């Protein structure tokens, strides 16, 4: 049987998995928002040029 002190590895593994995935998703959503805003701005500029 593995020593109780080894539970630190279980804790570390679960923390790394969930924090890693969470941070990646947050990064994606931040990038998505930024790109959406940039796209909106460019469309407005183009519409302004046309009119």
């Amino acid at each position: 049987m593995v020593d109780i002190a080894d539970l630190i590895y279980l804790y570390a593994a679960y923390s790394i998995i969930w924090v890693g995935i969470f941070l990646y998703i947050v990064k994606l959503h931040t990038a998505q928002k930024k790109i959406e805003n940039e796209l909106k701005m460019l469309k407005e500029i183009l519409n302004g040029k046309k009119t």
Partner: protein
Amino acid sequence: MLKNKLRILVSILAIIFILISVYFALIYTPPHEIMGDVQRIFYFHVASAWISYLAFGVTFFAGVMYLKSKDFKWDNIAFSSAEIGILFCTLGIITGSLWARPIWGVFWRWEDIKLFITFVLWLIFIAYLALRANAKSRTSKANLSAVFGIIGLICIPFSFGANRIWQQYHPTILVSSEGSLQPSMALSLIISVIAFTFLYIYILLVRVDIEKMKEEIDKLKQKVGG
């Protein structure tokens, strides 16, 4: 609109299955009789490895489709999937090392072929991203990526099957004649894999959407500039 609904549906399914999988992995399933609670790492370690194989498989398929059609839509899917594959491959390697330390006494064994090939697979896709970042034109970026994605796929059967062929240190779970997995452990593993599959689909939908918007921005910038 339909795409947004699909994304919301997949994200809800991912959240539900993640909560169930954590409950099954940490509470429902009893600790392993030899490894104890450290074995609980295995449920998400295997799920991470499975998603990395799936993601690199999608990269390969989308790369082939790009080479056939020359449609950048496929290149966006390939690139997005490769990035997600690297994330899950990294998580699989780290969690595997954290399981290995208390069980083997070391974080890593270079002499284990499965570990070595998985590390090579990870390196190939890191090189894939580096290659894309340095390619000059959009076309050469997509062509190089497609070829690299195909090379990367060659490693997957070896990475998956190495422990079944050579039977070194890395445990083999699916083909054990003794049935080393209890039914509750097998169920926990299946739920974790389903949870991560939904998570992968959700992330892929978001990632592809970002790439699509980037392309649209490039086109609009040319129009604005012109």
